[in-house]
């Protein structure tokens, strides 16, 4: 059997071991490869950074555990940015498994920036029904969320004082892995003319580039790389930046294996005279 044939018959478990090593070693021994902040993430950062003092930022954190690896670090980084700027933060989720992730993320960001629940931020919890909630909030946030996640009536929460609907929201930040982004663009941006920044999983990021060009989105943060860029812009060293060494090494391994596989395939075909 030729070397090319041996490569083509390589046990896939060897590839799994290579990828596992490529993931674990950089986490154990970080080399801190440089990260460049792309214009899309820079635009998201600038949009938030340039909001007037005292602005209210609405976070719709529409994700579940399957994508928390990408969106959880993003939530913490963006929320810390808002807290540093002393903005009022109002967060909600449209996914049933969202509160279990969103609540700790807000707590981590708030504790890091010394912010207090109900005074500096509010977590409204989960509400079922994408479009109906988005449209309903345009009329009245209280009609959709009479009480917050902890059961406190919104009228009793100081940070919610004077916030009735989108009219009092300066910016919408949507972090999602689903079509929730499309609906927010349709209703909050299209109908209520709210500026919006999107944080998306890497899988769906390319689908939303056209909205950047049309200014329907003012910034786009894509996947763990986007989260790492935001952390760098914030001068933080969170989970996303810590994971980027592993991300780079695994990409190198995958690329080399793809090249090796193709070279072996061509060599094997040349040896047998097939096309």
């Amino acid at each position, binding site marked *: 059997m030729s070397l090319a044939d041996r490569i083509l018959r390589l046990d896939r*478990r060897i590839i*799994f071991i290579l*990828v*596992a090593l490529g*993931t*674990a070693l950089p*986490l*154990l021994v970080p080399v801190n490869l440089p990260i460049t902040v792309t214009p899309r993430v820079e635009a998201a950062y600038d949009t938030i950074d340039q909001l007037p003092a005292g602005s209210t930022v609405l976070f719709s954190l529409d994700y579940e555990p*399957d*994508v*928390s*690896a*990408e969106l959880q670090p993003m939530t913490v980084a963006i929320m810390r940015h808002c807290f540093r700027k002393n903005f009022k933060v109002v967060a909600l989720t449209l996914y*049933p*498994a969202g509160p279990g992730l969103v609540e700790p993320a807000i707590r981590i960001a708030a504790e890091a920036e010394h912010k207090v629940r109900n005074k500096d931020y509010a977590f409204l919890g*989960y*509400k*079922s029904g994408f*479009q109906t909630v988005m*449209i309903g909030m345009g009329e009245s946030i209280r009609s959709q969320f009479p009480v917050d996640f902890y059961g406190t009536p919104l009228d009793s929460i100081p940070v919610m004082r004077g916030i009735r609907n989108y009219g009092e929201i300066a910016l919408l930040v949507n972090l999602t892995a689903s079509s929730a982004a*499309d*609906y927010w*663009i*349709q*209703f909050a*941006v*299209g*109908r209520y003319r709210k500026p919006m920044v999107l944080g998306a*999983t*890497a*899988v769906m*990021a*390319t*689908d939303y580039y*056209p909205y950047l*060009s*049309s*200014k*329907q989105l003012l910034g786009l943060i*894509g*996947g*763990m*790389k986007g989260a790492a860029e935001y952390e760098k812009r914030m001068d933080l060293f*969170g*989970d996303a930046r*810590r*994971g980027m060494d*592993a*991300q780079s090494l*695994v*990409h190198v391994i*995958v690329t080399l294996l793809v090249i090796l596989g193709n070279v072996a395939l061509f060599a094997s075909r040349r040896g047998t005279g097939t096309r």
Partner: protein
Amino acid sequence: MIPWAQMAPTITVWVAAFLTLCVFSFLYKDNPFYRFAEHLFVGSAAGYLLAVQYQNVIIPNVWLPLTTGKPVTIGLTAIPLLLGLLMVARISPRFTGPARWAIAFYVGTYSGIAVTGYMQAQVLAQVADAVKPFPPGWGAVNAALGLIGLLTVIAYFFFSVPHKGVVGVGARVGIWFLMVAFGASFGYTVMARVSLLIARVQFLLRDWMHLIPMS
């Protein structure tokens, strides 16, 4: 004796680590540990979803208005409740017809909400962006590439005329644009999947084995 409150996080981490390793064991080959984790996930996810929807939908939107509301509220709650029950009633062949009333109501309402939003945000705003004047400098090159990509990809998906002559050339160029888009999308997908692996390995090395420092 160690209090439960102190032990709970440790037990949670160990259970999560055990289930993570059970799922990873599939990479070697299918085995009972993997199937145990898979079935446990499906069951617990379904149970969780049912409980959350019961607490967040049925109780506030149906039960409380019916039991504590005024007559008008009860009436307004009864109508969607009836429509919802009609949807479920189609499990009996006798009620297949009335079940369509509820579906027709739902489709009509949803279309009314969605069509205007979709047209405004996904069609008109995008068309307006595609035909706007080119910006100065390198932005013009980007805008021109975007416009060429738009027209050639439309040519590729336009099947009412044969793909010959100008349309044929446009369609072939459109394929190149599509391939570049698919490549970029696939590259992002690889990154997303690797991110999920990194998070799990981070969890195992940090939260479970304490080999790397906490954030």
